[in-house]
């Protein structure tokens, strides 16, 4: 099968025990003070969008998952890392 190009998103955010001061501050100081009380929670994270050549979405996802672990895209002591193929 000839390889195709997939877009994979990686989201890194703090574990909940490590707190998320950025999300908290945006929520309290910006959003709630701005009057948007319908917003009940905010979490902040980093997003990496990668273009990956692979033969299937599953392969693309696995590859990225592996590289995230290998290259420590996240620090397991403090972060959680999500990988998802978006197209």
């Amino acid at each position, binding site marked *: 099968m000839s390889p195709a190009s997939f877009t994979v998103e990686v989201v890194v955010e703090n574990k909940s025990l490590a707190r998320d*001061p950025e999300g908290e501050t945006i929520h309290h100081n910006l959003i709630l003070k701005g009057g948007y009380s319908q917003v009940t929670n905010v979490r902040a994270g980093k997003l990496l969008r990668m273009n990956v050549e692979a033969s299937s979405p599953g392969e693309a996802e696995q590859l990225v998952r592996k590289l995230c672990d290998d290259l*420590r895209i996240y620090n397991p*002591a403090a972060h959680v890392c999500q990988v998802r193929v978006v197209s």
Partner: protein
Amino acid sequence: MVKVAVVQFPGSNCDLDALEILQKTVKVPTDLVWHKDLKEDQYDAYVLPGGFSYGDYLRAGAIAATSPSLETIREATVAGKPVLGICNGFQILVEAGILLGAVLRNAGLRFVCKWTRLRVESTRTPFTNLAKKGQTLRIPIAHNEGRYYLDNDQLAELERNKQIVLRYVNETNIPTKDSNPNGSLDNIAGICNKEGNVMGLMPHPERASLPILSLNNQPDGRLIFDSMIRSFENTVEGENR
């Protein structure tokens, strides 16, 4: 003769500062070593300086931690040599898994440059052996990501192994919320590995090693480097005997 290496990564910016203090103030033979050139463990001690290696992109220290030079450093740590990570150097050691935990973005979400008070919690490292336990040092910090974190189990382990070396404290030598500049867990400013030969700290001792640069005219930062020299003397004496 002993020789120290200051390891330079792309984006290091306190490398020359550390080099100058080691060579001219502490007067220990020291080389500035480009990370790619550090292929073998041929130095007696290593200093990983502060700065923004790889622009702090992704996460402070994360990319530099994958430099092959870290393998050499790892060998040196296993061999029991003194290894000191200052600020970004601390972040690199943590990201390389040589030291425990994580160093996260400051709780205040801003870069903070200020003089802090540090209480010496452990004198068993080659960087604090000249200090008295409980002694306060005045050394400045300057960082964006200095909030030390690890989970409760590991914190307990750190405590048990006496791996916490420095804490931020107030004027009365007590760790308080106000004296914690970045939201670090338990006011932790510096830790060491289990064996004690590797230390990482957020404050910059090289910036407090000349009286003229210090707020109180005391070169408190020198104690960290002088301790390292003393640890060499001890080993050398030991070998001679």
